[in-house]
């Protein structure tokens, strides 16, 4: 082989890797929390909202799903400040990730809501429950259970896509690799280690979520 592959040159930066991984996971957690909450409202609007509100949700979903995340990030971080909306790179990353994830989770959530048989809603209404309670305590839990795997994979995808926030100098896992390679010129090794960490995080997240899922939704298989 022409080049050498020397991981020992990287070993001293363990703390930085962990810190970067923490930032990546933190960003993902925040985006996932906001994203899921917003998409519940978005999906309900898409399903039962007024005509103009439905059109608004559709426009948002289509616009985001049909443009690259990197461009959305640049638009928010570089474009919005020129309108007077200044923000830190971290804030821009959180906003971009949330906006991006939400466009996908709205569609997933909507499919989940549609998968709940209409009889469930009728039974809730017939018991005298307020439609909001019917949605929150009858339809939503079933909808989420039905699309839980899809939601989890979308969150994992968001975590992996978040690597590009390093391009606006957010100190995430990928940026840590950028920094390290600029210090010791072990470019390949730095990115290799980071890629392995992403892989481990993705696998762990899927496993943990699957385990949590079986516990959360135990016993109710139809």
């Amino acid at each position, binding site marked *: 082989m022409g080049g050498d592959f020397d991981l020992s040159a990287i070993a001293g930066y363990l703390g930085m890797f962990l810190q970067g991984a923490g930032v990546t996971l933190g960003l993902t957690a925040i985006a996932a929390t906001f994203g899921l909450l917003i998409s519940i409202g978005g999906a309900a609007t898409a399903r039962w909202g007024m005509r103009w509100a439905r059109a608004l949700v559709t426009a948002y979903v289509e616009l985001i799903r049909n443009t690259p995340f990197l461009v959305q990030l640049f638009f928010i971080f570089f474009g919005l400040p020129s309108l007077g909306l200044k923000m830190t790179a971290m804030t821009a990353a959180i906003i971009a990730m949330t906006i991006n994830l939400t466009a996908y989770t709205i569609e997933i959530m909507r499919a989940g809501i549609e998968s709940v*048989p209409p*009889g*469930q809603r*009728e*039974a*809730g*209404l*017939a*018991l*005298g*429950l*307020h439609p909001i*309670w019917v949605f929150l*305590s*009858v339809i939503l*839990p*079933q909808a989420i*259970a039905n699309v839980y795997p899809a939601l989890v994979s979308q969150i994992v995808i968001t975590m992996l896509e978040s690597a590009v926030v390093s391009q606006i100098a957010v100190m995430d896992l990928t940026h840590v690799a950028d920094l390290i390679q600029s210090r010791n010129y072990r470019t390949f090794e730095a990115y290799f280690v980071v890629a392995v960490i992403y892989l481990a995080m993705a696998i762990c997240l899927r496993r943990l979520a699957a385990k949590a899922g079986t516990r959360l*939704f135990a*016993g*109710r*298989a*139809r």
Partner: protein
Amino acid sequence: MDPQINKSAPMIELRNVSKWYDSFQALKDVSLTVNKGERVVICGPSGSGKSTAIRCINRLEQHQSGEILVEGVELTADFKNIELIRREVGMVFQQFNLFPHLTILQNLTLAPRRVRKMPRAQAEELAMRYLTRVRIAEQAHKYPAQLSGGQQQRVAIARALCMEPQVMLFDEPTSALDPEMIKEVLDVMVELAEEHMTMICVTHEMGFARTVADRVVFMDHGQVVEVAPPAEFFASPKNERTRLFLGQLLKH
């Protein structure tokens, strides 16, 4: 409820109710009065509008003309009004419609806690009382999917009873059940009838109609064709369509 209401006061009144799905008329001028404590069975061929009629009573479907009164209160589009009426009207569905993500006990306590604002302990006590009545108390902590169809339907009846409704609507409660499970559900319904619960049952169980109904209603093509006490209804149906229907039922 209101102590002024006397025993024979109409509990539910349908006055010239009509309903259309686009151009198809599902109900044509349906009029029917059900008194307090009365047990009415509605039968008729599929597509006759019998399910639609009772689903209009708790406004799962909206009628377009005519009036529906529950305890003298007219059903309007006003939301509060619909909610108040739904609290007094219990419903049991063909497909049970239990909430699969909740345990049996939670299925029963959901509405009392949310709607009646009942404390949890009290709601659970109430639920256990009704589960005992439908002889299924030992299943309280299971999920619906772990129960047989007959058991699920008994739970559904108990769930509706937990709201202590004035009227119970049954929408083909035994049609989705395997034959060997029909009896356990009918037994519960007969007991309920014997306690003089006001009941409107859409069903093809003519044996049930014969034993418990005060009146039998036959519907066809969205119209009420014939109303009579069971003895008369089965022995000497007046209308040709009723005779045809009963004849077909007996052949099976």
